[in-house]
């Protein structure tokens, strides 16, 4: 990359790390620890992180805990709608290896096969302190320019798509309204 592009990337990364917008979508059981993190006690907003209503405006997509197949479809819709320097944070062991639902017929075991994950948070439902320290780790990762999950999704798209079809059968459900 030409060096002025690199300089611009550094400035952009500095800006992107200071103001992260989180998609307001609780996909799993870990979402119950988000309200305490967003409100008065742990106050994520002082780090510049706030909930956003639509995928278009969001930077982070939180996979809070287990992911059932039906939700995985909607997560893929939302992830693809988000604009591109986007990051995914996986909560707890359910996104790593199925967690406590390892033998369930409805939840996926390894999140990394379907969407690129930038950060994993430990804890079977990570505590608010873990979430805040995880976000600061993500911010420093973005600052250093290492959080390139979205580039990986673009480069290895067919690999991700093949995994998704393999697990879900079909990603885009046709008659969503089951008329």
């Amino acid at each position: 990359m030409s060096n002025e592009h690199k300089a611009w990337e550094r400035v952009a990364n500095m800006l992107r790390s200071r103001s992260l917008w989180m998609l307001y979508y609780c996909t799993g059981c870990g979402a119950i620890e988000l309200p305490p993190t967003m409100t008065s006690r742990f106050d994520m907003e002082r780090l510049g992180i706030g909930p956003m209503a639509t995928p278009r405006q969001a930077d982070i997509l939180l996979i809070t805990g287990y992911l059932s197949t039906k939700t995985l479809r909607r997560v893929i819709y939302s992830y693809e709608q988000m604009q591109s320097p986007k990051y995914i944070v996986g909560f707890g062991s359910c996104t790593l290896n199925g967690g406590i639902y390892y033998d369930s017929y409805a939840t996926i075991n390894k999140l990394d096969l379907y969407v690129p994950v930038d950060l994993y948070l430990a804890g079977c439902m990570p505590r608010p302190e873990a979430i805040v320290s995880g976000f600061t780790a993500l911010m420093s990762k973005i600052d250093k320019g290492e959080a390139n999950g979205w580039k990986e999704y673009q480069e290895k798209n067919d690999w991700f798509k093949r995994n998704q079809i393999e697990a879900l059968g079909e990603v885009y459900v046709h008659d969503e309204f089951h008329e």
Partner: protein
Amino acid sequence: MNSMNEILKEVMAISGEFSVKEVTARESIIFVETSRLNAILEILKRKGFSHLSLITGVDRIEDGVFEVFYTLFRWETGEALLVKSSVSRDAPVITTVMHLWPTARFYERDVHEFFGIVFDGNPDLKPLILENWKEIPPMRKDFDPQKYSNEHFPDRHYGSEFLVEGGGENE
């Protein structure tokens, strides 16, 4: 406010004998054939068991039978009654109780999806919770979720390199 035993005696007087099993002071199970099920449920509802808490299916695979439990509850005295009837496993058809409790439509739809028991008279037995499900109804005993999970959702294999990663310098 006559207690549960008097009510059961009155119901037995009307619709014939059925066996009663006491669980706790305020809860008992009655065994009823599917033919007399609707009549008895209607009498019980009139006698005060107005709240249908739950419709549960149990898969007794060894004696080839689906048991369907209707859990009724009486607010005034706090008594619960489990009305049990059984249906054969290969032709599981039972009449619906939607006319007594409209909310039963969704309980029946749930039991239908997870056991395959057909409640005739219930208009929408569409899939409720699972999406694009092609296997047999998952709550049956002969469905093994572990096998399904291993086939469809590969998980992380911790090979020897994981040990290096764990003990290595990059914490």
